[in-house]
Structures are given as C-alpha cells and as structure tokens.
C-alpha cells in the first residue's frame, strides 16, 4: 500500500476535531475497538484499521469532508455496504473511511420515465422491492443483492446472472450525483438516455471509488416479463456443456440467464438446498428464458433440441415459479455451500470467451493438482464470467499465499485466451499486481492520468486498481498478516 503518512497519525486528534466541525460528533468513530468492524470488506484476507470512520448524512457534508481532506492531504476510502470481493473498500492506516450507510433512502420513483432515484446506501434488492407491486424491477442482480448497496454497484459496475440479456450496472444507469476529491459536486446524466459531452457517467461506473464519491443514483427500471421458466440440463462431460452454451448463442437465442456448474459444485449446492440437481452429471446448465408464454415455450423446445444434439444426459423444465426459484436457490447458495467442503474458500472472477470454457476448466484442473488445492467452478456461461472457488484451510501455514498464487495463475490464463482479469468483482487490491498481464505501460499511464485529472494528489482510495509506481513488472506479492504489512513505510518498486 502507499507509504503511511506517520505525521498524520501523530496529529490524529487534530483531524478528529476538524471533522467534528463538519459533521456531528456521533457520526465519527475513531477508537480502535469501534473501527475494528470496518477493517475489511468481503475480501477478509486483507485487514487494516483506518484512522477514523465517518458517516456523513448529506451531500454537503461529503463535499466538506473531501474538501478538508484534500487541503490537508488526507487519504479517503469510500465504502458502501462493504460486500466487495476485491478489497476495494479496504481502509488504509492513515485514511478516513467514508461510509455512506446513512444515505439509505429511495428519493423518487418515476414510472413515467421508468427510473428510480436513490441514495447510494440503498441495497440493490430494495430498489426492486420498491417497484415490484407495479410489476417493475431493477435488472442487475449480483448474488449479494440483499446486502450490497447501489452506490457500490455503480463503483464496481456490478453484474449478476442476467447481464447477458439485460446488461450490467453501466447499461442500467441514467444519472448520478457525485463529489470529487476537491469537494466539487457534479450531476452526471439525469433522466435522459445518454448525455452529451464526454460520458463521465460511463467513466465513473466501475472506477472502484478512485475518481469520486457517489451520493445519488438514478437507475433504469424494467417491466417484469410475462413468463419466466428455467431448464436444468445435465451433461456427462464439461466439453458437452460448453459446446451447448456456444450452440444456444449460435442459434440466435439470448437467454435471460445461463449458468453452469461443475460436478463438485452440483453436489455441494444440492446437499445444501436440495435443489433437485442431476448428481450424476459432470456439468450442469441452468438456462432461464423469459418473454411471452408462446415465446418461452418455443424457446424451451429449441433449447431442448440443442441440448440433445450436444449429448445432454438430463433435462428438467421448471413447472412453476416455486420450482424455478428452487433451481436458482442452489446456484445462489454456491458460495455458502462451499463452506461444507473446506474451512476457507477463495473466489476468483475472470471472464473468458465462451468457446474457451473447456480449455480453461482443463487448465484449472491441472493447476488444482499442481497446487494440491481442490476447486469448484461456477460460471456465468452466458457472458463468459468464471468463478472458480479454491478450497483451502487458512490455518495451514502459507496456504493463503499458495491459494492466491493459484488464483493469479487462473486469471493469467483467462487473459491468455482472450479474456480479462475481472468480470464483476473489480481489481481492488486483490488483482492490482496482475494489471500488467492485460495492459502495457501506455495503457496504465493513460488511466493514471485520468485519475490525476480528477484527483490531483491521488488521495481518493489510493493503492487500489493500479500497481503502485511501476513495480508490477517485478511481480512481488504482498501478504498483509493481521493488518500488518511487512515494512509498511518502505515504498515498493
């Protein structure tokens, strides 16, 4: 992480006093015992307590905090619900953690313009809940949707199981109110399709809290389809499942969702929720189809034919809504189900061209043997987003390092076959050192220049996404043990 500003640590009390002039004292916590719950996000292998945690209540307070921190050169780490899986909200020891938990209101529901205006701390699912009585919903549905915040979704450009047909956050966003590091407040977009000038809204979506703090969002809502059905298709080999995915797309069908699991995960999830999965299959597809009744029936017939052509071993179609949700329950419980298989697991997130699935899974199998760590695979097959879950035991010496190395090898292979390092979890601190696998110096420097254009002193969420200085070529991995980086004050090259 960036060099710790020890001078700042020594004047912590002055900083707290200054912050108290901006926001209510009860909205600042700085005692070590109180800040401990904020030492990590959902990538809990990395921990670090911040200097203080602040909970502003409105945009003006956010603006004043940032303006003050910018003047005093204090680092700021924004945090939504802290469900991110790449350490994007990991605090720094000399940073203020800016929590948006108090921004938790839905401000406007506008059916005429098909949008919802919400504060960033509102959870993803509660947007759908706010409009479902009128038959509407918000399309991006990350697995953490019950807890993750919509502001965090924008910062990470979250996807979900339906993003092949309905896109990710960036495709479902109309506007945002944001605050830049100098304290300036800006409205990007609004309730119109696109906006003129540079697409700043598109730029900040997925910028992982490095460019601005989001204080309001306007998202697009859609009318629910009339009929939704899901098919469970089992295959006796991984290759057959992969070929079936490509064949469905090649036949001009874009399912609402298309998920794939390998044998290890079929068993784990079926044990966990008794979803009725084909336990003898080597791979399984969940294909969800939506539209009018006739359309869904036609598509199911077509998909059944394609599946048979690709040597499917079983096909089960959901008979009712309850059964459809049961099909999904297993997939959505993939992560907790892995808890039964090993004391710890590490979730990766690469995207690959769909056609390379069998090749990549074969390589993962090879690496699994090499590192002697079991792995289960969940795959958003429709959009090529792969989530290998590596099983390990954190109590074993060096096991986390070994697991991370295994994960890094998987991601490097994803890039090698034409894919990318991260599909929806973000780069954060986790994949920062791998950025040079995908980008050369020119590419990275261009991105850093954009960061500097909006945050000249690099104070907003520093140390995330981009390799520190140019050290990435040297590929030195850093393990933060119990919140302590080795030799923290030595700048890393």
């Amino acid at each position, binding site marked *: 992480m960036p060099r710790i500003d020890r001078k700042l640590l020594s004047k912590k009390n002055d900083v707290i006093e200054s912050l108290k002039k901006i926001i209510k004292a009860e909205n600042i916590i700085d005692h070590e015992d109180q800040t401990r719950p904020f030492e990590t996000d959902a990538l809990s292998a990395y921990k670090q307590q911040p200097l203080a945690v602040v909970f502003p209540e409105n945009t003006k307070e956010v603006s004043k905090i940032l303006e003050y921190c910018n003047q005093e050169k204090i680092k700021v780490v924004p945090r939504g619900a802290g469900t991110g899986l790449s350490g994007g909200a990991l605090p720094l020891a000399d940073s203020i953690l800016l929590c948006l938990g108090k921004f938790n209101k839905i401000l406007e529901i506008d059916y005429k313009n098909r949008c919802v205006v919400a504060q960033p701390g509102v959870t993803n699912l509660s947007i759908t809940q706010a409009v479902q009585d009128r038959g509407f919903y918000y399309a991006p549905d990350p697995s953490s949707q019950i807890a993750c915040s919509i502001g965090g979704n924008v910062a990470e450009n979250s996807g979900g199981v339906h993003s092949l047909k309905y896109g990710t956050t960036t495709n479902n966003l109309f506007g945002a109110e944001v605050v830049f590091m100098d304290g300036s407040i800006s409205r990007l977009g609004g309730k119109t399709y696109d906006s003129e*000038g540079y697409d700043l809204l598109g730029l900040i979506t997925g910028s992982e809290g490095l460019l601005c703090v989001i204080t309001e969002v306007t998202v697009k809502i859609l009318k629910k389809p009339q009929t939704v059905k899901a098919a469970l298709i089992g295959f006796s080999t991984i290759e057959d499942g992969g070929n079936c995915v490509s064949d469905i797309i090649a036949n001009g069908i874009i399912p609402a969702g298309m998920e794939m699991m390998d044998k290890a995960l079929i068993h784990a999830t079926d044990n966990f929720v008794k979803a009725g999965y084909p336990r003898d299959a080597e791979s399984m597809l969940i294909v969800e189809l939506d539209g009018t009744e006739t359309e869904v029936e036609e598509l199911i017939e077509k998909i059944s034919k394609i599946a048979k052509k690709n040597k499917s071993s079983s096909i089960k179609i959901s008979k009712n809504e309850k059964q459809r949700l049961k099909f999904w329950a297993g997939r959505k419980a993939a992560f907790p189900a892995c808890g039964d298989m090993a004391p710890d697991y590490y979730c990766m997130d690469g995207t690959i061209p769909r056609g390379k699935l069998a090749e990549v899974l074969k390589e993962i199998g090879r690496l699994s043997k090499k590192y002697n760590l079991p792995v289960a695979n969940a795959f958003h097959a429709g*959009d090529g987003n792969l989530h290998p879950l590596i099983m390990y035991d954190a109590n074993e010496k060096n096991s986390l390092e070994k697991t991370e190395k295994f994960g890094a090898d998987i991601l490097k292979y994803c890039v090698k076959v034409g894919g990318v390092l991260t599909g929806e979890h973000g780069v954060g601190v986790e994949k920062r050192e791998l950025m040079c696998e995908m980008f050369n110096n020119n590419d990275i420097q261009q991105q850093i220049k954009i960061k500097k254009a909006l945050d000249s002193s690099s104070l907003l969420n520093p140390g995330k996404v981009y390799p520190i200085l140019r050290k990435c070529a040297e590929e030195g991995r850093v393990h933060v043990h119990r919140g302590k980086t080795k030799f923290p004050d030595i700048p890393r090259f």
Partner: protein
Amino acid sequence: MSIEEKQNSPTYQDSDSTEYPQNEKKVSEFVRQFYKSNIPIELVGSGSKRKIGKPLQCAKILNLSKLNGIIEYLPEELYIKVKACTPIDQIEEELKKNKQQLAFEPIDFGYLFLGKSDYGTAAGQVACNISGPRRFKVGSVRDHVLGFRGVNGKGEIIKSGGIVVKNVTGYDLSKLVCGSYGTLVALTEITFKVLPTPAASTTLVMHNLKLEMAIDLLGQAINSSNDISGATFLPTEPECAGSEMNIESTFKLNDLKYGGSFTAIRIEGTRNSIEERIQNLKNELKIIDYDVSILATYQSEIFWNKVKNLEVFSATKNNLIRIVIPSSQCVQLVYQLSSTKFKYYLDWGGALIWMEACELTEEIFDSIRKKVIKHGGYISMIKPSDHLPYVEEVFTINMNRFNISQNIKKSFDPKRILNPGKMYTGI
C-alpha cells in the same frame, strides 16, 4: 455556390495538408510528429458526419480511411473486431450472413446531408454515439463497444476493454471515447458487441392521434411487458416554409394507410410471439377500435430504416436539431416550442425529438436550449444551414462538467491537437 460547396471544392483544399496513414503504427508516428511541432489535426474517416460539431480549421488532416477491414468476427462469441474506419455497411453485410446485427441501429446521416445513403465508418458511429430507434430497449452505441485501440494526443498507442461483455478491469475508457468526436483519441480498432437479428418484425401504426394521446400510448407500450423495440410519433405536417418534408411521400408502403399522424410501435421476435404481443398491446392500450395499419417484416424494416435515417428531412436546406429529454417532458416542451417555425418527429417514446428548424437564428436556438435544459434535457445542432451556418454552442454543457471535461481532454491530449474545439471551445 453554397459555403459548404466552396469548402469542398478542389481549389479550397490543400492536397499536402492531408495524410493517409496505412496502419496504427503510422497513425502513431504522425500524431507524435504533430505533437512535437504543435500542429492541430482534424481526424477524418469517410467524412459522412464531418458537419456535425464545430467546423475545424486545422493545419493537417489525418484521414484514417485506410484503416479498413474486419479483423475478427466470431458469431458464437457475439463480437466483431474491426479496423476503425471499416464502412458500417460492410460490417452489417458480414453480420447479416450469420443473422446478426449491430443492435443499436447505426444511423445513415447521408440522407440528411446529401439526400442519399452515405453510411460512414465504425469510428464515425463511435465518435458521435448517436443511436437509432431501438435505443430505449438495447442501449446506445456506447453500450455496444466492448473495447478499442487508438492513438492519444501524444502519439501513444493505448487500448481499453476487450472482447467480452463482462469486464471491470480498469476504467471503462470505451464509454469515454464514445461521443467524444475524435477529441481524445484517433481510433484505430473497435470491438463491437453483436446480437442475433430477430426472426421477424411487425409494426403497429395507429392513425391520426394527437400528440398527447400518442405519447401516452407509446409510454404505456414501453412500460408494458410486451418488449417493444420502437416507439415513434410522426405528426401531421405543420407549415414550414422552405422545407420539403413530407411524411406521406417518404413512407410509401402498400399496407400503410394515409391521412393524419402516425403513431408506430415495433415488435420483434418469433412470429407467434409477435402475434401474441400485438393482441396484448391492443387490449392493454384499449385500441381495439382504433384505425390501425399492420406492417409485416419487409415493410416494417423499411419503415424503421426511414425513421432511423431521418429520411423525412432528406437533403433539407434548414438546420436540424436533436433534442433528448425525459419522455414525461416531451408534450410540454413541444408546445413551448410552437412559436418557432419547425417540423419534427418523436422517437424513443417521446424522449428524442428530431427537429428541422426554419429561419433559425442564434437567439432562437439559444432560447430553445434554455427550454430544453429547464426540462432536464440536452440539445445539439446536427446540421448547419446556409441561413445559420455556425452557432456558438453546438452541444450542451454546464460550467462544472466543462471543467471536468477539460481536465479529461488534457489527460489524453495535453497540447489539444486532436480535433481541437470540435465539441466545445477550449476542449
């Protein structure tokens, strides 16, 4: 001879001022050289949309039309990677062979500027980010660019994105480049997301509705679960001197009745599902007794191509303005503009107004801009005219966004040599 004819005439052009790089490396070398010697450059592809934005007077023109050709097309992976100035019709032709398409419906601005097709290039579509009637359903050009390669204002070759849909690795520069009118990078390579072409298309046209009624019905149709992909309103022609816009002569189709306005809804998919959805729409919108025309696939496609390509304004001598607003504000705005002499039609269920303005002056344009901004929208001058060839502000921006944009521009093009001032003075 009109001003533009003069500008295009050989005596006006300096043949030494145009460079035609053959490949990305050459583009980089040229830009590097111009960067060193502080020479501003105008980037040109086929020139089909050159008149959109402010006119440029750059010492050098970098004509990128030789960066042309499909690099890789994998139908089952739903992407096509092309050299930046590959003609759009060539790309569409290739996609058609596999029953696929660019779902954002690239607009052919040739009809507006020349009175005939002049589709332009992939880079032109990306640089302008102006999308067709399906926008409200599938997104804009920017939602279909998966990645790009290009040369920034220092001559450095940069890339962003990739060939896959789900990608959050680094900032999404593809979005930033879309709609930047060549002011950030000289594009050299673009990867588009492609989608299957629906098996059939049908258009339901309701006749002779008034504006309020039309917008209300289109809004209801978009808000229904019938998954419509077009919602346009073509009003009865108002008086407008000097214009030859004629809805009836533009939309000459066998199954289309005439007389009064057209309120059209497009439904795409399999035949059975289209029939089912048309029936649903008729019931839900309570239009069973209405006077309607139904256009099947062949005519439906012609109808929407004409809507998309602005054919009602074909070769107009007047200014053409594009207004985007929240659809709920559309009716009010149209009435507020009625003191201006104009012809218009609405797309995206009322969220987009294409407006041909007659006898437009800078003052009138500014007063329209103020009204549009008040209603939460933005306005752009798409086509200048002899009457009003130049306006101070072609696009809309506020001070705050201008300052941010200026910083972004500097980060790509520190000496401001790429299309300087094309969008805004100072950017």
